[in-house]
């Protein structure tokens, strides 16, 4: 009898405790990437979440599905290459010069306005690599704005979708 009660008490307390633990709530941010006009192959565009310690925290989107070239995106590869998490669901095709592409970034609402950053790294096969084609603070304001790129990206536009 005591045993049963003990188990129930433990389970209940776990349940209560768990509700205090961190639970992410995600929001979808639509992001339109407009490439600069340039000749040559499509660019790999990789969107990552950077934590306040300036470390990679999460890969948000990968444009480019030929893994052979991932190594060339040096900074990101040093993060992703070690763990190789499954990114199939957030992988699209490379984006060619002059073209547009829309992707959806899943952003943890608890991390907005907390000193996190988002960076866009770009690279073209056998061409230049931009470690910070675009970089901005993860703030609610920025997630509704337009940012100008410094490499292959001409600009990006973002919009909360819900």
């Amino acid at each position: 009898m005591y045993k049963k009660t003990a188990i129930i008490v433990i389970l209940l307390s776990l349940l209560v405790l768990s509700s205090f633990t961190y639970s992410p709530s995600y929001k979808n941010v639509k992001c339109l990437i407009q490439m600069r006009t340039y000749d040559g192959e499509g660019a790999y565009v990789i969107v990552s979440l950077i934590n306040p310690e300036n470390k990679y925290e999460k890969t948000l989107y990968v444009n480019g599905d030929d893994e052979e070239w991932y190594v060339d995106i040096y900074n990101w590869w040093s993060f992703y290459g070690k763990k190789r998490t499954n990114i199939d669901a957030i992988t699209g095709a490379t984006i060619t010069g002059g073209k547009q592409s829309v992707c959806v970034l899943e952003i943890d609402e608890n991390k907005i306005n907390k000193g996190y950053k988002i960076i866009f790294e770009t690279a073209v096969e056998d061409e230049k690599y931009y470690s910070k084609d675009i970089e901005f603070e993860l703030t609610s304001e920025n997630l509704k704005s337009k940012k100008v790129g410094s490499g292959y990206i001409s600009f990006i536009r973002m919009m909360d979708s819900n």
Partner: protein
Amino acid sequence: MTISLWRYSHLLLALISSVFIIIASFTGAIIAFEPISEKLNPYKIKGVEQVYLKETVAALKQNYDEVIDLKTDYNEFVSATVITKDGIFLSGYIHPLTGAYLGPEIQKTSLFKFATNLHRSLFLKKTGRIIIGVTSFLLLIISITGILLIIRRQGSFKNVFSKIVYENFFQYFHVFIGRFSFIPILIITLTGVFLSLFRFDLFPPDKELVQLVEFETSDKIKLEEFVIFNNTKLLDVTSLTFPFSESVEDNFTLLLKDRKLLINQFSGEILEDKEIALSQLFKTLSINLHTGKGSIIWSLILAIASINILFFIYSGFSMTLKRKANKLKNKYKADNSKYVILVGSENGNTLAYANTVYNFLIVKGETVYITELNNYSVFRNCEHIIIFTSTYGKGEAPMNGNNFIKLLKSVKQSQEINYSVVGFGSVNYPDFCKFAIDITKTIKQLNLKPFIQPLYINNKSNTVFIEWCRLWSDKARVAFSVSEYDILENHRNI
């Protein structure tokens, strides 16, 4: 001369590129099954041919919070990128009428991924792609020289598909399969070369549509009323990208098979209409032909053609090695020999018969010299010349005898020599033993003495050859008797 030039280029190119061709055709045979496995997925909806773009757009708009884009592929599967009403980001196949989510987009399995990478670039990135492009070009040349050799062998272009004379397994099937896989291999290699050229931007790139900024707000009508959505069949659409926001500068981008349209998101008005560059259509065609995308039958043909290429390499090289091994070995010097055997052989078959006679004479303790027809010269101590020759193509000399008739006329022997001619051929060819007959005609006019009747053997008849050996050796007083087994042994040693 031309035959040997073609054969040498056919062989030399094959030698240089064989390693890469082996890799490419082996991986090619594997990845040919990818489109087949894709097509077996249940995402194709019955009646999709009848669906209009309007219906799918309406279904998506109704079922999802946000639609980012909509695509159809070569398998006639319809996919979309959407955000669900629960705020979940989804990308995958959908039902074109109900908008229901059917499953995630097919991911390449790791085997196909590995094989594709190896096939495309040997894991060497750009360098690898160049190597593969060049290899593809070489294989193209190899198949063209190959078909020229077949035409030559069969006598004429219209005889390409007539009966092939069976000399040995590799020779027969190299030619037999070569005739059938020529067209598929030609297509594979040509498209392979094109794809490499596209990869290195050697074709002009497609110009982008300029996103127009339309400032006046047009009348709003429902999406279902857009004329273009009502008039366009879903399967004619490559992709439809929905406007990024409700801002008037954001439009629908509709990519059809041959055109690209910008559509005002409120009025449905076509803002810009541009034809897709021919080079782009050509690229799509090349990709589909090269990969077999969307067609199970063509994928199977590609797989078979790839396996055939592997067989060509194997059979081709073994034929070559056989030819190389045909180097004649002599115990005695030409000038010391009483008997001189002259051989005209293309694939080594005739040589086997000549060797049979050579070996018997050696066993009998006679001095014999065996050489190719083209090495005909003055033989100082020669009493007997025996000529064994086949005929190549349309009554022409085999490669090692193409100069013989000329030599025969110009070389003057000092002593009287007996000659015997044995021709090998097939009545299946229109010019049966023509070259041997030509030799007989020429040799008659010279100061050589006929020893026994010239003999023309059909389809390597061993019985006829054995009978000839008996007649000849009796008359020459070196009596030996040849058996089927002896001939077989000599064939095996070649």
